[in-house]
């Protein structure tokens, strides 16, 4: 085996379906193209099928229908142990009866490599995750963060073309999680490995990923770069799941988006759009203005000080709540109870599919 890592592999998931107990479609006709060397996240609430999708790639589950192709090779029917993928679990899944060094050496031993090479690569991998010196410890003697780093070293030491991570940071506390996010991203770049990352934490996915697939009820709702997913959500589910957002239901008529009692909201109307629709506006894309034409008039109900920003909850005259975020520039004199208008640029309003 060469000293340098293998080139990363692309993953194509083609129309894959997985049903459990003949009842629930955990994964429903999912098609995804993951590029080689990409940090790709599967994001969604629990039960959306993201973990099952990952387990299908790993080979722990077999698909009822569809194909999985990795690096040009159809691996749909290949058993797990021949797939050559690194896997990191939320529960770490270290071998409790083995030392740190033995844990990391496991995959190399299974490949029958000479002892000297194993020792060398284990040392290098432990160094990569900053755990050199811990070789003789047992997993039970390590903290959660250290255990997850051992699991990471164990997965990357085999130089997989694909690294699969199932909520790897989910069991860590917030501060540790943030530093591990950074480390993992850094490591992925260094190794140039294709990384598929399962998480329910949207901030984590936005911060780390090259691209994200948002999943819901076994289906992929949208695939895109973090900024696309955030700024241009395509469906109501994606808009709602990622961050805070204001949704307005209404209808397109005569080149305007109309909601409630004939109130026109700012939105770009490309062409002859008609029928009912939903538009979505992020709180930070809104501005609080005076009560002017084209703004939604209302009264400030609550003002939450977030440090760098202030989040206002404005109840409009129609009785709907709208969130508006303003930068804390230190000059705002708005108080709860003040009458304001909420406005936004038409281009910042996103039209959603139903």
């Amino acid at each position, binding site marked *: 085996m060469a000293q340098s890592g293998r080139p990363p592999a692309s993953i194509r998931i083609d129309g894959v379906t997985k049903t459990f107990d003949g009842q629930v479609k955990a994964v429903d006709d999912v098609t995804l193209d993951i590029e080689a060397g990409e940090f790709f996240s599967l994001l969604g609430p629990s039960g959306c099928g993201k973990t099952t999708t990952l387990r299908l790639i790993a080979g722990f589950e077999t698909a009822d229908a569809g194909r999985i192709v990795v690096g040009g090779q159809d691996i749909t029917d290949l058993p797990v*142990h021949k797939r050559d993928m690194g896997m990191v679990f939320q529960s770490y899944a270290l071998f409790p009866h083995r030392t740190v060094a033995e844990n990391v050496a496991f995959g190399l031993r299974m490949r029958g490599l000479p002892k000297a090479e194993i020792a060398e690569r284990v040392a290098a991998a432990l160094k990569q995750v900053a755990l050199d010196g811990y070789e003789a410890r047992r997993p039970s003697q390590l903290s959660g963060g250290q255990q997850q780093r051992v699991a990471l070293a164990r997965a990357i030491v085999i130089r997989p073309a694909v690294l699969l991570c199932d909520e790897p940071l989910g069991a860590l506390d917030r501060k540790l999680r943030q530093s591990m996010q950074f480390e993992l991203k850094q490591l992925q770049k260094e190794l140039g490995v294709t990384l598929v990352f399962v998480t329910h934490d949207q901030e984590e996915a936005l911060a780390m990923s090259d691209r994200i697939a948002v999943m819901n009820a076994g289906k992929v709702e949208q695939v895109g770069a973090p900024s696309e997913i955030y700024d241009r959500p395509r469906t109501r589910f994606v808009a709602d799941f990622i961050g805070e957002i204001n949704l307005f239901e209404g209808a397109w008529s005569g080149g305007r988006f109309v909601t409630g009692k004939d109130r026109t909201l700012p939105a770009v109307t490309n062409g002859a759009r008609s029928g009912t629709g939903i538009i979505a506006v992020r709180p930070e894309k809104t501005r609080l203005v005076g009560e002017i034409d084209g703004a939604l008039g209302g009264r400030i109900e609550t003002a939450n000080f977030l440090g760098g920003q202030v989040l206002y909850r404005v109840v409009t005259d129609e009785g709907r709540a709208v969130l508006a975020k303003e930068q804390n520039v230190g000059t705002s004199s708005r108080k709860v109870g003040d009458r304001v208008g909420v406005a936004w640029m038409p281009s910042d309003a996103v039209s959603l599919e139903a």
Partner: protein
Amino acid sequence: MSARRLDAGRVAYYTLNGAILTFLLLPLAIVAVFALNPTPYISFPPVGVTLRWFEKFFANEDFMRSLWLSLRVAAMVLVLSTVLGAMCALALARGRLPGAGILTAFFMSPLMLPAILTGLALFQVLLLSGVGRPVWGLVMGHTLVAVPYVLRTTLAVLANFDTRVEEAASSLGASPVRVFFEVTLPLIRPGVIAGGIFAFIVSFDQFPISLFLVLPKGETLPVVLFNYMKFDLDGAIAAASMVSIVMALSVVLLLERVIGLKAYVKL
């Protein structure tokens, strides 16, 4: 809350434990005293210290033959019941068998029947089928009542088993067979060994089943001791008991030492 209540609780705790320990260990102490007492009948208080009963025990051909047989049978039962019990446990815990609960109860049932019935039933089956009473019949009978111990302890370990550890191993390139020997087996070993220790002891001091399944001049130690006691009640019985206790204890300690349970206690 107060230190006083804590003290009262602690006193109760130690008293109860002391009582249990005394209750369990006092008979053994009495046997030890009798084994060393020189009078030819069992008496109290002891009048001296002697090893003559041990000499008598070790010089007696019947005792020696039966001790050797008991050890061999117990060793075979240990091996058989750990293999069978562990395999049963794996099948029941992992096999997604229909009616696994009923099967578990079925495999545990020898513990619920009086052993004397099991012995009688085996005796009749063996005789009726014309097999007679070979040693392997005895081993079978003992294994029947020993397997539930291994099954129970192994199932307990499997209930807390994180199967992701096995998945991690297979993702690292281990074939199913290697996953079993590299990961599954080492992790269930404490349960299997604990069950095996029980199995050895259950066989070594098994009486009711053995009573039906042994041949004259082919008895196990408990049967020989029982027969001996019908006519003689001297210190040799006590000495034999001491030897049995020491044997059983050394097997437990040996297994613990060689295979080691401590390293796995904290899973």
